[in-house]
């Protein structure tokens, strides 16, 4: 119960930020950080809850972005044999949904194909998938404009009773849009994690052979999780396309996957709040460090931070923080209990009540 109250309170506070501090630059920075947080949350689903290290996650982000952008702009593609597929521009929310579907479909494909291989091999396949997508978007200039970038992408719209259909182009509007999508995604993930499917997914993370032995259809659940995770990343990508309104092949760069990974790892993989906290820190740090250190040095610090967290705080910031809170409030008694009760969901879900 307390968990829900904190959640609702936080949502309200976040929604009030543009009212309290309406500087458009801050809002745009936080907006983009918010999109990365949604992508990080989707990665967390795969990485944290099922334990699959997918390092090509940005592929789903990019596919969502391009699919949505192209659908809203309309495109034609020459299919060979004198046939051309012509797609007229679709309404922007339709394009958004198509972006999600395209990303989820590629997630399904990758899931089905890659779960034949595990561990290091899976990681490599996912990285390559993202790289191939980048090269395709770079070279299929007729469709994607290649390095010349897809621009003049339509903004998302909002229906208000007074003004009718309104384009969401102001920084405040974008902020609220991203926040809404973020909250929806968070709720979906929480629901998934606490459901039967979610528990099966965690079971397979903890011990795949054992899970298989008690009848959990491992591949089935992995593919399902990948599908949801990819779809959500695609939603983040589509959101990005319609707020920044320009997309180029560099959206598939490995560095964006790394950014998401750092957010998840630093925040706490396998926890619901982890990617959000991690995303806040790494999404906003560049702005806070501006002028203090050069951008290259910032990235050196992020890399070093990631290494430090991996070696010393492997669970991430959120779990460590919670543990500290518990220790402060309960004194030494916390040492005995291995599973402290929490305000924020941090633990694995095997064997606990929903």
């Amino acid at each position, binding site marked *: 119960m307390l968990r829900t109250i904190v959640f609702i309170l936080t949502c309200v506070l976040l929604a009030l930020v543009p009212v309290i501090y309406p500087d458009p630059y801050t809002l745009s920075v936080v907006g983009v950080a918010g999109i990365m947080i949604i992508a990080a949350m989707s990665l967390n689903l795969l990485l944290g809850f099922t334990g699959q290290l997918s390092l090509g996650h940005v592929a789903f982000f990019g596919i969502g972005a391009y699919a949505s952008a192209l659908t809203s702009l309309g495109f034609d593609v020459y299919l060979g044999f004198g046939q051309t597929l012509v797609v007229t521009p679709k309404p922007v929310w339709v394009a958004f949904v198509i972006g999600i579907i395209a990303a989820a479909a590629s997630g399904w494909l990758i899931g089905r194909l890659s779960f034949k291989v595990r561990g290091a091999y899976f990681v490599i396949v996912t990285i390559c998938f993202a790289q191939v997508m980048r090269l395709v978007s770079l070279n299929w200039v007729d469709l994607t404009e290649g390095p010349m970038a897809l621009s003049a992408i339509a903004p998302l719209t909002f229906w208000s009773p007074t003004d009718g259909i309104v384009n969401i182009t102001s920084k405040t509007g974008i902020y609220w849009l991203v926040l809404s999508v973020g909250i929806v995604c968070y709720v979906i993930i929480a629901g998934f994690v606490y459901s039967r499917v979610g528990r099966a997914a965690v079971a397979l993370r903890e011990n795949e052979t054992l899970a298989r032995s008690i009848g959990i259809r491992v591949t089935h659940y992995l593919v399902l999780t990948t599908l949801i995770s990819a779809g959500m990343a695609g939603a983040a990508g589509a959101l990005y396309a319609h707020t920044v309104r320009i997309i180029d092949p560099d959206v598939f760069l490995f560095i964006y996957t790394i950014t998401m990974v750092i957010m998840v790892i630093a925040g706490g993989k396998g926890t619901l709040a982890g990617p959000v906290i991690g995303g806040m820190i790494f999404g906003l740090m560049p*702005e*806070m460090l501006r002028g203090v250190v050069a951008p290259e040095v910032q990235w050196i610090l992020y890399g070093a931070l990631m290494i430090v967290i991996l070696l010393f705080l492997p669970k991430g910031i959120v779990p460590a923080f919670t543990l500290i809170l518990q220790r402060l409030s309960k004194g030494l008694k916390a040492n005995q209990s291995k599973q402290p009760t929490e305000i924020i969901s941090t633990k694995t879900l095997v064997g606990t009540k929903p």
Partner: protein
Amino acid sequence: MIKNHWIKTALAASLVTASVAASADSIKIGMTQPLTGAVAASGTYVANGAKLAVEQINAKGGVLGQQIELILEDNKSNPREAVNSVEKLVLRDKVPVIIGAWSSTFTLAIMPKIEEYGVPLIVETSSSSKITTQGNAWVFRISPTSEMEAIAFAKKLKTFDPPIKQVDFLSVNNDWGLGAANEFKKIFADNGIKVNQIETVAPDATDLSAQLAAVKGSGSDTLIVTSGVEQLTLAIRQAAEQRLPQRIITTGGSFPEQLIANPGPKGYTSTHLLFFSPWTPEAAINPVVAKNYMDGWKEKDYPFPGLTEGFRGYDAVLTAVEAIKLAGKAEPEAIKEALWKTAVNGVNGDIAFIKSGPAGKESGQNVPNIYVVQLKDGVVSSAE
């Protein structure tokens, strides 16, 4: 989640103090250039030219009684980052005028934002004709279009021996490279020159051997290469390695300066179309300005061949400052009006804007000068 709230408050507080501190007594000029990434060499030169101009002007008292502050953002050789950098310059730094963004692709990407926010843009390098024909009234270009370059080149066709009869193209596959190939193709058609192969290359590719192998047997006597400094260097080197029979002519104003220190095979010659030639400063239209520029550059120990591109930043700053002076205040709308009346003696030549594009929404276009030089065994000479 509680921690999250405190972070936001801290961020808000720090940003407020930062913005208060920044609004000191200076006139800001914004600039977005590729300082990292595939075309970092050129972007760095242009930025250095701009910094030099700002320093020299500040030493003489600045403009309107205030010092000039150049706010330089890196667009990372990427159109999306270019848009990002413009957002920063306008929303965070509140600059009244912007110079940028080097590549035609980046400039085209930022033009909608320029119009949305109403800030004048001085285009210092980009050559795609689309930039000044789209009806964006906030765009003022001092660099030539690919069309102008092609026309100027056509005037020099007779000077080539052996004469140019058949050509191949090797262009970077973005608005600039493809646009240049198009314009030059038209000129060649008008002059009875046959175009054989057109090869393209991604902006960040380092191995051009496949493209060069493809043109090797085409029968052309000339290869026109359009790309940035890095790829020009690679193309010429690898072409020599593969013993391409074509002579190489580069366009776009970039110069493969590494080939001076590390020359190609003996006797190997390449020709380059430049918009400023530091090897023949006597040919400059405004020798005093050119000298100031070259002397200042030398003092700062910047690399000599960078002069071929640094002048773009230099001239752009001169233009911006003159416009601010005429406007009487550092406000975007006023500066935009003033730019139409601006006439400056720049390093490349005399800068003034003529209307270009659809009526009522014209952009400003300057008509600059073009120089042709030849590079052989590490030595540069005029080819006119």
